[in-house]
């Protein structure tokens, strides 16, 4: 169920990202919900199954960009594994730490993609500001995803009981 929500939400996030721009086409800053989504997914899914669906998300992302699938795969899978590693090795995570991970992996994703584009110098300051925007959006994304997950689980339970 978590993977299903992940892919559907991921697709809509990409659609929003590619169509809802702030001021003009060349503006660097935009609404990017993907880092928060990967963060949530890594905290809720196991490593191997998760990696498989991350590859799916990378495929979807490459549809909306000139960058190749491999660039997104590398950027996303690294982010996913980092969070999974932290999740396994840390016993307790507080909310601020969780949302800070969004900033962290957002920066990581941008580093990989900017390096792939040959423009690493663009990371400062725009990349960092984008990371902060993503971190600010993270609680909203977590709230939506948690509610969706809960809702779908209730629906499935009710169907099982009636069936």
């Amino acid at each position, binding site marked *: 169920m978590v993977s299903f929500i992940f892919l559907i939400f991921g697709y809509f996030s990409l659609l929003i990202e590619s*169509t809802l721009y702030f001021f*003009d*086409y060349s503006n660097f800053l*935009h609404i990017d919900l993907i880092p928060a989504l990967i963060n949530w997914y890594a905290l809720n899914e196991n490593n191997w199954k998760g990696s498989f669906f991350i590859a799916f998300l990378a495929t979807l*992302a490459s549809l909306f960009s000139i*960058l190749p699938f491999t660039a997104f795969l590398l950027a996303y899978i690294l982010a996913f594994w980092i969070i999974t590693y932290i999740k396994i090795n840390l016993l307790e995570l507080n909310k601020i730490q969780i949302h800070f991970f969004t900033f962290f992996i957002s920066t990581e994703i941008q580093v990989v*993609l900017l390096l792939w*584009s*040959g423009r690493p110098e*663009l990371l400062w300051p725009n990349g960092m500001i984008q990371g902060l925007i993503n971190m600010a959006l993270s609680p909203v994304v977590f709230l939506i995803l948690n509610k969706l997950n809960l809702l779908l689980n209730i629906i499935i339970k009710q169907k099982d009981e009636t069936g």
Partner: protein
Amino acid sequence: MPRKQENKTKERIKKALILLFILALTISGFSLNYLFKHKITAPIETALKDISSQLQGYLSEPFTKLRLIWKSYLELKNVKEENQILKLQLAELQQEITTYREALIENRRLKKLLNIKRKLNKKSIVGRIVGIDIATWHSILTINIGKTDGVNLNAPVLSQGGLVGRIIEVGLHYSKVMLITDYNSRVAVIVQRNRARGILKGIGEKGCILDYVKKGIDVQTGDLIITSGIDGIFPKGLQVGRVSSIEPQDNMELFQHIKVEPSVDLDSIEEVLVLIINSKK
């Protein structure tokens, strides 16, 4: 004790007599007043009324004001409701005006594109911008026309004012346009005034630079840059931009540092014109 009782009885009788006297006086007064047609009480009445009217005059002012305030409040309540209805109507009308204005602006833009189409005398098709690249540092746009509409790879893309870019990916119903400001964009150009050749490179948000123009060649701010046609992608003579600045360079350098401002405001384009080129070429 009997003395006290005697006194009390006397007092009662006294009170009763006074009451009877007042009663008799009142009745007789009324009767007399009636008989003499108010002639006796009339002056008193008039005097009292005068005084009263004066007092009424003083009091009526603040009371009238209070009444007016109350009336105004009631009216205001009605006006408020009316105002809300009018506001809603106004918002609806404003929305309608915006829609009409938008249609008018779109019409003007399309007319300009049509003029370019006529001038070029080449087969072309109008596309609408539907999206941007999620790697926002790339200046790449998605348009709503593709192979089924006759769009081919590397087809030049124009807008009112001049060159926008070229097609770098074609789907059935969509295409991706690389703007001339993209870091990977290269266009063979010439300076219109003195025919000096160069390569126009994209530098992202900052615009473009004209590279490989030798040091001694006279290029001035404001010079018009047009496509040279030697790259085999863009037809000759398309307006690209104007020289915005020429930076001073070291003696060791071979080429000039020329900044070019694109003719088209690439940040606000909504429709583009894609030239239909022969795919075999």
